[in-house]
């Protein structure tokens, strides 16, 4: 095979084949997915008057997603729940059901991730962890999760002298914590930290979809 056009045709078709097979066809199959209600009528249409899922993430949470992206959280945390029986995602309470394609349609940037140095975060907002816990954990993971290898994000917080009354949103360190500030000082979240925690709390897989029902 010494003929350039011939060789080139082969080279072109080899990649064109997978491009149409994987990219174009998944775009045809998934590109027109829309929001829908938890159950649909017999014609496969959303029910009138019921809320549509997945919901659009808004406001501070949306800004928090940007912080999540800038900090490269995706390199240690996934956002996908595998089905029961394949891995232990559901047994670990990472989500009440498997995640499906429709769960991601409202996202401009999909952060599925491929690495679980840390746990999955698809449903982290649905776990019994409040904003205080998240702030302490982000400030220094050793406070809440001794032995974790997650890096501290203390640079998203501001340590400042208490001026009169302590701030209401100052971090509540456990008594005698070695990570707390010196006496007379407090640690308060910056707006970016607030946004990031808001985003984490907004990550919930607490709704059913016609193709993925939550079974109690």
């Amino acid at each position: 095979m010494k003929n350039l056009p011939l060789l080139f045709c082969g080279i072109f078709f080899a990649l064109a084949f997978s491009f149409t097979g994987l990219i174009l066809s998944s775009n045809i199959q998934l590109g027109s997915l829309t929001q829908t209600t938890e159950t649909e009528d017999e014609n496969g249409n959303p029910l009138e008057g019921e809320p549509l899922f997945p919901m659009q993430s808004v406001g501070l949470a949306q800004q928090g997603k940007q912080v999540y992206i800038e900090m490269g959280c995706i390199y240690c945390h996934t956002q996908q729940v595998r089905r029961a029986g394949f891995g232990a995602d559901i047994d670990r309470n990472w989500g009440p059901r498997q995640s499906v394609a429709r769960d991601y349609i409202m996202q401009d940037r999909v952060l599925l991730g491929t690495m679980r140095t840390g746990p999955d975060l698809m449903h982290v907002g649905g776990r019994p962890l409040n904003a205080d816990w998240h702030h302490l954990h982000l400030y220094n993971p050793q406070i809440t999760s001794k032995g974790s290898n997650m890096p501290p994000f203390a640079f998203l917080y501001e340590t400042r002298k208490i001026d009169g009354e302590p701030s209401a949103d100052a971090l509540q360190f456990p008594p005698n914590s070695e990570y707390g500030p010196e006496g007379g000082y407090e640690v308060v979240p910056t707006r970016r930290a607030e946004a990031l925690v808001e985003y984490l709390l907004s990550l919930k897989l607490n709704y059913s979809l016609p193709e993925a029902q939550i079974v109690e």
Partner: protein
Amino acid sequence: MSNAPQSNSQSVSPYSSQNAAVRAELSEIDASIRSSAIFFTISAIFWLLAGTVFALIAAYKAHEPSFMGDSALTTFGRMRSAHLNAMALGWGNNIIFAVGLWIMARLCRSPIRHGGVLLIAGAFWNIGLTLGIGGIIAGDITSVEWLEIPHYATPLLAISYALIGVWGIVAFKFRKGEHVYVSQWYILAALFWFPWLYVIAQVMIIWFPARGVVQSVTNWWFAHNVLGLWLTPMALATAYYLIPKVLGRPIYSYYLSVLGFWALAIFYNWAGVHHLIGGPIPVWLISAGIVASVMMVIPVIVVGLNHHMSVVGLHKEVWRSPTLRFVVFGAISYTLVSLIGSAMAVRSVNEITHFTHFTVGHAHHGVYAFFTMIMFGGVYYMMPRLLNREWPSAPLIKLHFWGSAIGITVMVVALQIGGWIQGVEMNNAEIPFLEIVQNTMPWLQARTVSGLFLTVGHIAFAVNFFWMLFAAGAVRAKQGPTLLDSTSKEGAA
């Protein structure tokens, strides 16, 4: 380690032909591509060293998370991404532009035209990449795997790439003679495939985001093909050229190489979806990816067999050649890493290895033990012919080889054992997550140690290279464009 050149020197002398006119052809081609090849090699080595620094920081942070933890600039996600891009696009692409294009020029048997285009493109490539990696560290990282470079730097990369790709295809078009060697197919194909992949991925993920997980499918179609349709063909092209060339014996079977090429071209580009096994995409897509990944066994066995049969009976000669020592290490790694990769795509194995350090180990096995080792071999062969000089130090070459070989072996073994344990434990919901994290620590520490070995190797390589480059005349060859060993110096062995 008795690897000093021995009494085979008689047969080693590369220039038996005394006919200067005949000899001139290759030298002329080498001279025509000299400046751009040297420019790209220097850039590649700088990126290799920068990438090594990023790697050491990231590896150390994985078990000492508070190390350099006071700044957002050096947080794990950014260091690790800076490392990946410095290595893949900085080291990988620059060294491909050096070694791959040099091989292309030689095989086209025609001095290259418009070498200046390559220099301009190379300058833009490295400026774009510096901007991009600076952007990653500054926080403009996209958090799309293998596409972390922020949007303001990618057009620069795309333009400079296009110049280089077009140059390669034009060089092929104006080749002398009818014959085409298998390396040229691989290089030609890769030069064409990479921009297609890159542009589609940029458009569908960054510029005009596709809906939902279509992005993820595109992402992994691209990311796996960077390995499969860019780094792999370039490394295979180099191996296909250097193994027979150094040994002075044609490749075992040209038929097999043809089969291997087309099987790779057809199967590899479907394989990427195996990164989404168990994920929220249609099962048929994943199944297609798994089938393709398993089918990759065919080209891998074919290529492995072909390389093995070409070397058989000449193992001593391989060991005595710095080039082949690296290239054959890489070729063996290709067979190993690809077979492991095919196995990892099987659902029951993937259930364990997915989301763990096993995959990280596998990635380094492919990009370092296979691709990078072959490219090191390529540089060891190319530079003496471009500069008309010998490598100044044999001990440094050996130090490089052993640093790299030991380092990467330790890394792959540690991450894959540690990753496997991690995966098994993660699938058992009884085991608390923090306990799993603790159990990976020794393996992550072993990775940092392996990184030190690699660093030693890279420094030896860089020192030897710049010594050779700047010690003008000191070790200039006395005859012909290359002189790696001559009978007159036999006493030194």
